[in-house]
């Protein structure tokens, strides 16, 4: 079965540079979530999109922005990168139309961002 695809898998950037992470959800999934997992930390929710509209926002810095496109893929744009942005960034997708009091989020393999 098709899974969530994230690209690139690894990314190395310098301080103050910009980075763009991409997420391709499972086909027919309409919701995308972004999470950030720092070294030795638990994943933290950043932002989510449902049907191309931002649906919720977590602890996402103002330097970051994201959007979901017409084909449901999503991009996380990160500007003025700082050393502390080094982390594993996960994307997850779900099908909200089948809301039954819960949703199952399927995670991609993550993009490991290293800021030097």
């Amino acid at each position: 079965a098709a899974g969530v695809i994230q690209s690139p898998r690894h990314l190395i950037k310098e301080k103050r540079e910009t980075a763009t992470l991409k997420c391709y959800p499972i086909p027919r999934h309409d919701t995308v979530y972004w999470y950030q997992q720092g070294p030795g930390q638990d994943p933290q929710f950043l932002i989510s999109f449902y049907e191309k509209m931002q649906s919720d926002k977590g602890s996402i810095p103002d330097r970051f922005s994201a959007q979901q496109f017409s084909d449901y893929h999503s991009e996380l744009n990160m500007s003025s990168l700082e050393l502390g942005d080094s982390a594993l960034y996960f994307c997850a997708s779900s099908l909200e139309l089948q809301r039954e009091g819960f949703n199952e989020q399927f995670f991609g393999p993550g993009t490991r961002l290293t800021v030097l």
Partner: protein
Amino acid sequence: AQSVTQLDSHVSVSEGTPVLLRCNYSSSYSPSLFWYVQHPNKGLQLLLKYTSAATLVKGINGFEAEFKKSETSFHLTKPSAHMSDAAEYFCVVSWSGGSNYKLTFGKGTLLTVNP
């Protein structure tokens, strides 16, 4: 707000012995609870989920968890540990804080399996 507390940051067991990873939750509503596993340098894999159906939930790889409302617990167990079970385990609660659902993770429990 909803949260989960994983009571042990590190659990070490011998191969073939039982595994118990403890999780307590705090929720104003009937929660949806999950256990995810993360192997080194890998993504997150769903082990099992509780969604207000049966309180004893069976997952993949022989893991199971029991939802106990009176104790606000959702502990993960496995009768016999295997070397391949060594990984980080996250207890997760799902809640709706907007128009859809987001996950709140516990701090994780690192499971070490000794030969």
